[in-house]
């Protein structure tokens, strides 16, 4: 018996080869171009360094616990305030960027343009700008986090809005509901769980992100990290790491718990 061979057009075959060659070329370019000093990486010094750094990191400096914890709390506050602000501010932009909400292509491109623009803006530069605007305090960090998070949250929100069941929206307008009523009865109930769960997810990311802001005086644990690094104080870095890991893992479990209950 003859089994028909899968049909592939010439076009498909050519596309396949082009992709394959492109991928191979990419990797050749990457691996020949990158300048890794293997003889250094694989040298005895690496082992000496491992010996020097790791044991110290693994014996965290508990005397620093108080100050690390204090800064960690500040980091948490920054992340919470910033994320909450962002999760609200992102909503209107997300609606603007969702293809099933805004029919005008230019408006929509504006919406998604704003979002990708924000996402590329380095958070450190944002923090710098806000330190200049409101002074070197945690509020500058809050603002930097808030703006930075809008980019990602807005994008995720917009995707969630695009995925809603539009026939429900149709049913609402078939009832004689106006636009605002349709929003509250047809759209919001559909998107709320995702929005909440994205906001919580983003909160976790922001806790990590706000650890960096301290570098330029915008509050949080970043100052401690940079100073400990400059002082080569590995055991304090160990302590900082321990606090971050434990606190964030706890938040993680808490938020997984909350998320499970709302979705």
């Amino acid at each position, binding site marked *: 018996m003859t089994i028909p061979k899968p049909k592939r057009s010439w076009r498909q075959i050519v596309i396949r080869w082009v992709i394959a060659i492109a991928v191979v070329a*990419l990797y050749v370019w*990457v*691996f020949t*171009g*990158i*300048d*890794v*000093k293997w003889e*250094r*990486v694989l040298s005895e*010094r*690496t082992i000496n*360094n*491992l010996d020097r*750094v790791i044991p110290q*990191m693994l014996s965290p400096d508990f005397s620093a616990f108080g100050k690390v914890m204090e800064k960690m*709390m500040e980091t948490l*506050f920054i992340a*919470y*305030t910033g994320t*909450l602000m962002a999760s609200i501010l992102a909503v209107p932009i997300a609606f603007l960027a969702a293809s099933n909400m805004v029919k005008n292509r230019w408006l929509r491109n504006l919406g998604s343009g704003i979002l*990708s623009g924000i*996402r*590329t803006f*380095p958070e*450190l*530069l944002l923090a710098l*700008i*806000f330190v*200049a*605007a*409101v*002074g070197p*305090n*945690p*509020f500058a*960090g*809050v*603002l930097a986090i808030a703006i930075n998070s809008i980019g990602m949250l807005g994008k995720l929100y917009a995707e969630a809005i695009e995925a809603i069941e539009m026939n429900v929206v149709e049913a609402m307008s078939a009832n004689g509901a106006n636009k605002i009523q349709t929003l509250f009865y047809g759209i919001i109930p559909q998107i709320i769980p995702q929005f909440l769960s994205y906001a919580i997810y983003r909160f976790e990311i922001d*806790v*990590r992100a706000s*650890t*960096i802001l301290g*570098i330029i005086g915008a*509050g949080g644990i*970043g100052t401690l*990290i940079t100073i400990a*690094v400059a002082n080569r104080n*590995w055991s304090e*870095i160990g302590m900082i*790491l321990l606090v*971050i*890991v434990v606190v*964030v*893992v706890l938040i*993680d479990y808490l938020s997984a*718990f*909350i998320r499970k*209950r*709302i979705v």
Partner: protein
Amino acid sequence: MPKIASVPSSESFSGNVISGREKKRITLIFAVVVGLYIWSSMETESTITDLIEGLPHVFNMVGQLFPPNWDYVSQVWPKLVETIQMAVIATTIAAILCIPVSLLAARNVTTIPWLYHTAKLFLNALRTIPDIILAVVFVGIFGIGVFSGILALIIFSFGILTKLISETIESIDPQPLEAIRASGGNAIQTIVYAVIPQVLPQFCSLSLYVFEINIRASVVLGFVGAGGIGLLLQQQIGFLRYPNVMTLIIVIFFVVLAIEYISGKIRERLV
């Protein structure tokens, strides 16, 4: 913690649109969220008036970013190439490593509870480490240079990717798995025939998403001598040369845009 969702029983009709229980629940959640917000904005000295007064400075600073200094692009090029190369390597390795581990961390594939929980905990802990600490530690061990940067990116993106992929695996349709098992397939066959086809498109698009994150993360790495375009960013901010900074931002923006475009194309083909 408020007990949020409970199985709504056929609660008797209260004459209201919203049942008494739901009303209490919503009020409680609202109170907690707002209460926490008030507390944390006091702790962080967040006052709107400060922001409003500071706005002219925001505009002033943003204004200084323009016009970007296009002459600077030529000097950005080598570091940009390095950044992209670092990100490609890191993403590739992270994507490969992520396959077995995300299977371990997926509840519906790894049915041994302790193994699954250990994998999950390990990943959760790994993901919490800020990229800057990773970079610092690797620079401390392997010296400055791209190798340390790549390692930091691998660990960083491995954590994110594995979480996303294992969640994707957990949400696949369980029925084909049962069917393969029922026709005598072993664990590996079940993965190859029922799990992988279902997660392949997401695997690709999430990997590209992580690639994009890696490009952005290397901005931070530059601060500790771990290579990449971040080095330039830090330099130019240090000299307060904002038009050059803007040039860097625009370059990164276009790279990210290009990745988004490519990943859109790939998704279209795969889904």
